[in-house]
């Protein structure tokens, strides 16, 4: 659905809402620009014959290094752009689009800048950090491109708050319904109720693997009791509903975490990269 709608001329303030995802923004404008940049860099690298050997110290090396450093600084500014809601005709979508493609072109620009000379030093540290940022970014793109529809289908118009409320409501009913139960089954229910959907750690949340789910155990435990009276049956039904709601909430949290978790690498690594980059530049000029 790559379509474009213009909201018509509004006197003095013509805003448009292209209905185009950030990757396709303006018919892949930034992909084209980034590709062109990479091609030019590759051509320059191979068409020139740097002396004594390819690397950061040659004029082409300096040029690539300057482009790379500027790009990194600009890419880092996305964090500020995203949050400083100033006036003006900027669009974060365009920024993200450029960020992604120019960020990827850094692989070419920076690698050529190194002249394939890597070692155990601050220069290579900067390079490695940059690649880490880029790799995490690539994961992010994968997440952004594939997960939103799943997130949308899973929540079925419910908000996260409503999902939690629904579980709480079931909990209250369960609490009441479990009153007539014998000690054993009632403990199972209590344990299920004591389970906080938010307590499990990040890893569990991401993997979506809840092997020790108390609700599941309670369902199984009650089933083992065999034929039972109406009270147990009612509790069982409620537990099954609780399980269904819990699963939805878990899927929701899993998807949301996946959409976010990479930023916890991407952003701190960016900070480290900026530090390493500074060290790299300072040391280069110091030993000049």
């Amino acid at each position, binding site marked *: *659905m*790559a*379509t474009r*709608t*213009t*909201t*018509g*001329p*509004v*006197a003095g*303030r013509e*805003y448009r*809402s*292209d*209905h*185009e*995802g*950030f990757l396709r*923004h303006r018919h892949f404008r930034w992909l084209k620009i980034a590709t062109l940049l990479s091609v030019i860099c590759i051509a320059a690298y191979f068409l020139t014959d740097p002396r004594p050997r390819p690397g950061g110290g040659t004029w082409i090396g300096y040029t690539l290094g300057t482009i790379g450093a500027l790009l990194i600084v600009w890419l880092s500014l996305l*964090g*500020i752009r*995203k*949050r*400083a*809601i100033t*006036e*003006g*005709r*900027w*669009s*974060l*979508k365009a*920024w*993200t689009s450029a960020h992604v493609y120019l960020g990827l072109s850094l692989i070419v620009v920076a690698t050529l800048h190194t002249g394939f000379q890597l070692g155990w030093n601050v220069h290579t540290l900067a390079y490695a950090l940059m690649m880490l940022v880029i790799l995490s970014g690539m994961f992010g793109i994968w*997440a*952004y491109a594939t*997960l*939103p*529809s799943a*997130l*949308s*289908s899973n*929540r*079925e*118009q419910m*908000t*996260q708050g*409503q999902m939690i*409320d*629904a579980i*709480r*409501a*079931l909990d*209250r*009913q369960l609490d*009441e319904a479990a009153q007539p139960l014998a000690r054993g089954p009632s403990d199972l229910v209590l344990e299920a109720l004591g389970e906080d959907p938010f307590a499990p750690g990040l890893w569990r949340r991401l993997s979506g693997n809840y092997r020790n789910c108390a609700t599941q155990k309670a369902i199984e435990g009650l089933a083992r009791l065999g034929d039972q009276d109406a009270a147990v049956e009612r509790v069982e039904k409620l537990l099954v509903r609780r399980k269904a709601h819990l699963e939805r909430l878990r899927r929701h949290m899993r998807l*949301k975490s996946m*959409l976010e978790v990479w930023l916890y690498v991407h952003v701190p690594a960016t900070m480290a990269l900026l530090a390493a980059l500074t060290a790299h530049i300072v040391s280069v000029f110091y030993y000049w």
Partner: protein
Amino acid sequence: MIGWHGKGEGVKDRVRIAIVGSGPAGLSAAGRAARLGMSHVLLEKTDHLSDTIFKYQKGKHVMATPSSLVLRSDFDFDAGKREQVLGTWEEQAAAGAITVRYNAEVTRIEGEKGAFVLTLKDGGTLEAEAVILAIGTQGNPNKLRCEGADLPHIQYQLDDPTEYIDEHITVVGTGDAGIENALGLAADPAQGNVVTILNRGAEFARAKEANVKLLTEAQAAGRVIVRNETTPAEVRPGQLVLDTRDGQETIRCDRIIARTGSAPPRKFVEDCGIAFTSPEREAFPVLSPVFETTRPGIHVIGALAGYPLIKHCMNQGYDVVEFLNGNTRLKPADEPILAEKFAALPGSRSVDEWLELLGSRIEIFRDISPLQLRELMLDSGVAAFRKGEAVFERNEIGSSLFAIAEGSVAVEVNKDDPSITVPIAQGSIFGEVGLISGRRRGATIRAAEDLIVVELSRSAALKMMATAPAAAKVVNRISIERQLLQIFGSGLTREDVAELVDGAEVQELRANEVLMKEGDEGADIFIIRRGSMIVEREIGGKPVFLSYLAAGAYVGEMAVIDGSRRSATVRAAIKSEVIRLPGEAFVRLLERKPQLRRKAFEEMERRREINAFVEGRKENFSSVVDMYSQTAQFLVDNGIGEATDVLLIDETLCVGCDNCEKACADSHDGLSRLDREAGTTYAHLHVPTSCRHCEHPHCMADCPPNAIQRGPDGEVFIDETCIGCGNCQRNCPYGVIRMDSVPPKKPSILSWLFLGKGPGPGEPSKDWRKKHAEGAEKPKQAIKCDMCAGIDGGPSCVRACPTGAAIRVSPEAFLSVAKLAEGE
């Protein structure tokens, strides 16, 4: 005379003035009468003063707008807390020797000027020479009609839901008020209330969707017991007998809260022999400049007279008693405001001279009373233009109506050639299309000579039309004529369309009502004047969405031109109004005007092509077409049919970062006007809870200070005169208006990023707000999307979306078949 409260001693059976209702209007009137030493009595239905204000939420900040209006009353009034306002009045009523009679509901007024007989509910009577009706517009709550309906544990109002604990409470009625009460009572489980709500039907037709959803949730959570198709049969102490579908049932019930709506006071007023300006719901009693009704000797003031602000009410109370006391030279308190307004115009005339001039020159003002004209002018602007200056430009958004007081204008009917113009003369009006359809201006209008115009805001104009049928008729006729000229355009004159205008008929359609059915014979042509239509066609047994027609479009011409049957079904997307034009007259017009005929044929061809296109697609891409049809229907069901600009979220792109909400908050005093996650979704297209800027905004309907307006970019916004009454919030069917006070200012984004200061982007948390509150909390006002008016770059929600999921669209553009072609 002594200050008097209660019943019995001191009240004379015959007074000079009987004042009915002790709201700000009645109270102020009584204060004036007491000060002038006129014998009077203030009759109040309840056991306290000023019931409407008494019923405000506890601690509500009462606002004293408009600030430019001086207060003229023997009672003080200033912005402040409800308790403070009422307390002051209580004191001053006691000190000012006002005769009040509580629990005195007037049920009948008989007799003549000089000798009226007022009958009270308890059977007592009272004589008065003149009557001032100041009973407001709240009306009486509908009482329960079953056995035991007079038992004391039935109440019709719930002030503070936290007051009750461990009770079995039954709420009767599932309108918004009932649902909100039930939810309030059940909100805190610690209160231990068992709350039951009775619904007469099986659905919740009268409540807002958001409320219904909350109630359903509360029901699922076991907090509220909802009983459908149930009515109270008998009230007993501690018990309630219910009529259910399966027979009678008795439940425990310690308290009943009956919220089955209220009857407006109009019937009572009419029974007093007072005529209203029209049968419309919005009409007011016909009044003379001294507030006298059509029944000599009875006067109407305050909200009932159409002045819903407390200051207005109080001033009128003062004025009406002065008039009754024979003071004929009293100028209304709004005189200086009008004087300032007119001061900007050339020619130094007094306010009265201006009013006289406007009233006599402008056609639509002719049948309006001087009092109404004054009020109308308070809500309107006046402006002077030099020859050649544009009053407004084509495509500008504007919904106001202009009336020419002096000079004339030229309408540039052809957008490619500004030299082709049509004149509009002195005394006539223009801009009426925007008024009716709430959409963009269709043409540029320039002053043809030096010009003076009155600009009536849309709401002022609508109020005028509701209260002055003659004015409504003139506007209607002119607007139909102009709409015809605009649609069929080129080279037509008023004479050409006269036959069509004469045969035109305005027809109202409910949402989903069918205007014409595919395959039917039909000879008429329709112009959509308000609302919008959906055109669909049955293909392979299923209705397929063909197109969406906004106000200003016309349909039905195909069958008229070539005598065929209707080729598609057209039904109203929302409550709409169409102008029905006789087909034969249209055919005759086409015969006379070959140019128009050609144009009509071209348009018809275009529509045929669309039909053929969709039909052709259907063979090969039936799923695409189905999807398109269903998506379109989903959007229409969600109110897009009445939207002019709506935020949609493509959930195949939305990563849930909520940057849209944060950006919204950061662009508007730290309060977000948008709830991204809430709202409905179909096929990954999400309609979040955010304003759609309806063509005819529901929120505007009932705003006492008239603070809701349509801005130059089409945005519906609330200005700073908002008094926080919450009417708009209740009236909005989409739940997009919230009441809140402006939070303290946050430190800048950079000091948050680098120094960790402040709460960061987006709406600050309640805790942070509390901790950083500067002085007293600001009063709560209504808050909604203003489409980021005045912010360069446009709506922040769209600009701040990192993936392009958030888009703003106008329905015409979004619901066009062109989308179908692109969608493949």
